[in-house]
C-alpha cells in the first residue's frame, strides 16, 4: 500500500511496483490517475481517522493482508513561523504526522498477516530536517516527528517481525516543491555531496531495498539520499 498515489513520487512508485508484478493499493483525496488491473484506489482524506479505518477495513476484506506500507502522502507549507497561522501548522501535522501514525496503527494488523519474512513500513522524511531549513518550520517539525516515530515504532514492532524505516529525500521536482524557486532548489542541490537533482530512478532502488527481503535486518533507520549529512 502506498499513500498519496495520484501524483509525483507516490504515483511513480505505484507504477514501478505494478511493473515489478506487485498488487498495489493506493489512495488520495481525488480519483485515481493509475489504470492497471492490479491497482486498487481508495479516495480518502487522510486527515480523517474514520476514513483511514474504513479504507483499511476494506483492504482487510479484499486482500486480507499487507506486505508493505509506504507512507508517502504529505503536505508542505513555506512561511516564516511568525506569519504561519496555527491552523496551517496543525493541518500540516494532521497529514504529515497523524495520518502516518494512524495508517501505521491500522496497517500493523494486516502486516502481521503477511507471508513475507519481514513486512515493512517505509516513511518519507526530508533534508528540511537535518538542514533545519528556514521557512519550513511546520513541515520540518512534522517530519522530525515522523523520524522519531520510525525509531520508536521500530522497537515496538520488532517482536512482530515488522520493520520501520524512512527514506530522507533531497529536493525532487513534485507538486510539493513547485512553489520553491529554481535558485533556491539549485542552492539546496549544491549542498548535497552528490550535486545534482534527485530523480525518481534514484528513489526506486532504495525503496525496493527497504520494503524488500534484502533489508530484513534493517529497522529504525532514516536513510538520506544524495549525501546530505
Amino acid at each position, binding site marked *: 500500500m502506498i499513500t498519496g498515489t495520484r501524483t509525483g513520487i507516490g504515483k511513480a512508485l505505484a507504477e514501478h511496483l505494478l511493473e515489478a508484478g506487485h498488487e498495489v493499493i493506493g489512495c488520495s483525496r481525488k480519483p485515481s490517475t493509475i489504470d492497471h488491473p492490479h491497482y486498487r484506489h481508495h479516495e480518502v482524506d487522510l486527515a480523517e481517522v474514520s476514513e483511514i479505518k474504513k479504507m483499511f477495513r476494506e483492504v482487510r476484506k479484499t486482500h486480507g493482508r499487507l506486505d508493505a506500507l509506504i507512507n508517502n502522502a504529505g503536505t508542505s507549507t513555506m512561511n516564516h513561523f511568525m506569519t504561519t497561522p496555527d491552523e496551517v501548522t496543525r493541518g500540516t501535522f494532521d497529514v504529515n504526522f497523524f495520518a502516518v501514525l494512524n495508517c501505521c496503527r491500522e496497517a500493523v*494488523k494486516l502486516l502481521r498477516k503477511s507471508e513475507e519474512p519481514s513486512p515493512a513500513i517505509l516513511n518519507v522524511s526530508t533534508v528540511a530536517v537535518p538542514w533545519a531549513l528556514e521557512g519550513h518550520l511546520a513541515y520540518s517539525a512534522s517530519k522530525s516527528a515522523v523520524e522519531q516515530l520510525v525509531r520508536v515504532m521500530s522497537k515496538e514492532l520488532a517482536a512482530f517481525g515488522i520493520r520501520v524505516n524512512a527514506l530522507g529525500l533531497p529536493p525532487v521536482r513534485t507538486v510539493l516543491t513547485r512553489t520553491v524557486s529554481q535558485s533556491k532548489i539549485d542552492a539546496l542541490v549544491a549542498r548535497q555531496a552528490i550535486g545534482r537533482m534527485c530523480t525518481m530512478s534514484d528513489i526506486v532502488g532504495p525503496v525496493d531495498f527497504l520494503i524488500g527481503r534484502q533489508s530484513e535486518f534493517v529497522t529504525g533507520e532514516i536513510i538520506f539520499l544524495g549525501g546530505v549529512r
Partner: protein
Amino acid sequence: MKDQILKIIIDAIDDINTMREEKISTENVLDLCLYGNDGVFESMYLVAFLSQVEEGVEDEFEVEVTLASEKAVSLRVSPFSSVRRLVAFIEEELRLAGAGAA
C-alpha cells in the same frame, strides 16, 4: 452470543501463541488474566490480541467495536483483568451498538 465471543477470544489467543515461545494455556480461559500484574500479555501483545478480537467481532457480528479504548482502560474493574470480564465488556459494547442478541 457469549459462546461466539469466547470462541473469538480463544482463536485470538491461539493466533498470538503462534508468535510466542511460552504458550498461553486456554484451559481455564474464563479466569485467565489478560493484562496487569498477573496478566499473560505485555502491552504490545495485548494490543495485537485486542485487534485480533476486534476483527473477529466485526466479522461475526458486523459491528465495529474498539477494545483498546479510553473507556475500556478507565473502567474501575478492567475488562482485561479476566476473559470473563472481557466477554461481558464486548457483550455490552455490542448491545450499545445494537447488535442482535443470540
